[in-house]
């Protein structure tokens, strides 16, 4: 097997304005935290969007597998009473 010459992979999250959620943008390669932030800035914030950047080593993220998708998500789909639209609005309740 050939040796991997790439730097480590980092996931990039950016905040578009103060107080907003950090949204996943993609990933970059970098050898350390500081380089990861600089590379994230140059790759995903080239036109000035954003107020803050998070970078996280990709291998620090715990991810569910696609095989588990049925187990994790399906049970919710066939129980319509889990959804707010299942319930009729009481008459006279205006501000719900």
């Amino acid at each position: 097997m050939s040796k991997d010459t790439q730097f480590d992979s980092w996931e990039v999250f950016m905040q578009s304005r103060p107080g907003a959620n950090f949204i996943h943008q993609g990933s970059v390669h970098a050898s350390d935290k500081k380089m990861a932030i600089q590379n994230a800035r140059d790759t995903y914030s080239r036109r000035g969007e954003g107020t803050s950047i998070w970078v996280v080593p990709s291998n620090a993220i715990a991810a569910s597998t696609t095989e588990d998708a049925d187990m994790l998500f399906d049970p919710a789909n066939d129980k319509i009473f889990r959804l707010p639209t299942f319930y009729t609005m009481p008459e006279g309740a205006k501000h719900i």
Partner: protein
Amino acid sequence: MTQQEALFQYTLRLGDTSLIHAQRLSEWCSNGPILEEDLALTNFALDFIGRSQVLLTYAGALEGKGRTDDMLAYRRNERQYFNCLLAELPNGDFGVTMVRLLFLAAFEKELFTALQNSEDETLAALAKKTLKEVRYHLEHAADWVIRLGNGTEESHARVQKAVNELWMFTGDMFDMDETDKLLIAADIAVDLSTIKTKWDNYISGVLEAANLQQPTSSYMQSGSKNAIHTEYLGHLLGEMQYLQLAYPYAKW
């Protein structure tokens, strides 16, 4: 020389250095060591082009002969260019490009910090705006030089070679002539002797952190203030100006 003529010359120097450095960095497009660095280098090139556009437009206005930024960029030969020598030197390997950026950005940081207080409002405003990007360029370059210096045996040897080879071109940035003296007296230009010590201290610090030897040779190549360049500038302009020379007034 009138003050207006001196200011034209001064602005041209700043604009030319920015433009020629931009052209060099843009040569990295699609050749960067990794995708992220490719984007960073071409991003920097765009910063420098933006800066040169403002400066060359202003220079054209000061000259008052109706020359636009494009005319100044594409219709002058190397003996009419006043960029500092460092900016025109070939990219070499990635280490050379980073050391060149380090030397230039460290100079620009001090220059534009001081230029914020210029009596010339346009230059003062540009300096203020430019400092933000210069800070980023400098940090990026310094981080890389430190990383390469402390990296492998090969990266250390290469970046040390880059420092040794570029060193003799650093003095040219600080050369001053009548243009500078006239404008310093009017509180427009920066007295470069005052920022030299700061540059020296900063660069010594980075080289030390990078475990690199500062060259001891004191010979400095000068010439850019008189538009005397290395053999590399002509070739660079040949490529940069090709389209306008082959198809004058071409637009797209």
